[in-house]
């Protein structure tokens, strides 16, 4: 099966040298692919490059089309939607308005159906509709960020550190929902420092170190390899996660 997103020799950076170099990776539909790496490994840079908001070069294929020169808005319209680190909710808009502005390209009928679908994924958002997004808890904001991305009817979701700052029980809920979304036929590229919780829902995993992919394998194989975790992911390694 060919993957929805294919990277071949991709570089990305901020105009002064390439932070991410020579990345080749495939993200298939219907499963979670996780990109692990320590702080500063280049995970966020890689995602920003995919979204087209920073400089990038190399081959970036979305469903067979080279998107490496497309504008950010064209990439979004093509179905690649990025949930940035720190969630990026629109704090002064209500929850409902956050969903509406993201779903504004849908037809009225499509909008209702998509909104119902999103609220079924995150029932909490339905209760919070009229609340200002900025006043919600971190977990609710993360749900809103992912829900808002789903309003755009994505074919592939890029999720940047969705576990950041969440209590273990909320984190578990969010990751369960991410797995559910993947199961509905959407490709998911997940970036995480938290190895255990992300490897548990991923099928494939890649490890980024100093801007390059050093290992790519089945998630289960990487989870089983204590060498990988200890070498590349400490100190945010397995010891932190035993409590969940």
């Amino acid at each position, binding site marked *: 099966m060919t993957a929805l997103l294919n990277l071949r020799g991709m570089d990305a950076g901020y105009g002064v040298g390439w932070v991410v170099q020579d990345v080749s990776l495939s993200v298939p539909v219907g499963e979670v692919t996780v990109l692990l790496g320590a702080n500063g490994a280049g995970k966020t840079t890689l995602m920003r490059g995919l979204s087209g908001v920073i400089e990038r070069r190399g081959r970036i294929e979305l469903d067979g089309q080279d998107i490496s020169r497309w504008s950010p808005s064209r990439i979004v*319209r093509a179905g690649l939607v990025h949930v940035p680190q720190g969630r990026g909710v629109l704090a002064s808009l209500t929850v409902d308005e956050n969903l509406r*502005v993201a779903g*504004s390209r849908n037809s009225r009928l499509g909008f209702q159906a998509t909104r119902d679908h999103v609220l079924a994924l995150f029932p909490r958002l339905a209760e919070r509709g009229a609340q200002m997004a900025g006043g919600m808890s971190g977990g609710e904001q993360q749900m809103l960020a992912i829900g808002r991305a789903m309003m755009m009817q994505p074919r592939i979701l890029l999720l940047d550190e969705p576990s950041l700052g969440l209590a273990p029980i909320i984190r578990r809920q969010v990751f369960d929902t991410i797995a559910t979304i993947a199961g509905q036929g959407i490709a998911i590229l997940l970036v995480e420092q938290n190895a255990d919780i992300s490897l548990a829902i991923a099928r494939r995993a890649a490890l980024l170190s100093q801007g390059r992919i050093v290992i790519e394998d089945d998630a289960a194989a990487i989870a089983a390899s204590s060498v990988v975790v200890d070498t590349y992911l400490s100190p945010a390694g397995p010891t932190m996660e035993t409590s969940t």
Partner: protein
Amino acid sequence: MILLLQQIIDGAANGALYAAMGVAIVLVYRATGVLNFAQGEMALVSTFVIWQISAWGLPIYVAAVIGIAFSFVFGAAIERGVMRPLRNKPPLASVLAALGLFLVCNQVCALIWPGAQREFPALASPVTFELAGLRLGAETILLFGVLAAQAVFLWLFFRHTTWGLKMRAAADNADAAVYIGVDTGRMFMLGWGLAAVFGCLAGLLVAPTILLTTGMMFPLLIYGLCAATLGGLTNPFGAIVGGVIIGVVENLTATYVPAIGTDLKIASPLLLIFLVLLLRPQGLFGVKQVVRA
């Protein structure tokens, strides 16, 4: 008692002008973080355009519609051509650009339309209604209509239209808005265009009551800045409320505080703002900036 009521009504009607300028300043500030000192002079250009079209023989309301359309394009073009290139430069750059724009707009008007002052066509007939001892001019009623129309437009546009929501999204967090497919550049242009329309409205309403001169808009800019600051700078509804409060306070102090009178009445809103900002730095309806450590 009748005098008091009359003063409040007349002041609130004047508030429509201050509100329009205030909303213009807020729209620009909220969208692009620029305090546009040229807002009044941009409106001056549009008001002269309206005068010119009407002088060519078209009815004033037709001229007004054309002028308002012109002001929208003019405002959007200023954003794209002058402000956009300065967007990621130090804030002082856009302040200086706005001051430069102030002078250029003013001088261009003086150059194209020389002479001291011009008669501007009236927008309302000079009839006055009497109601329980209160005098209500057609012009006052027009001002109240414009005031209400502004509030309704803002509410409908920013809460219930896709464009309005996208503009708020771009103003709230431009980086995040890009990820949900909002073309932030286009939203900034739209914000400046819309602001220019509100400014033009203020110019159009004030010109018939005083004569059309190149110095006409500067006091209105001050009132507009006051209305915007009072309302909280990021909330267009706040600017409307701020404009009305300023109109009323100004009129009341001019009538009841002899030391102020008509000569010093522009000072009273400034004093009011000084007090409000001491007690509530974010303005009446502004959101307090919370900076996380």
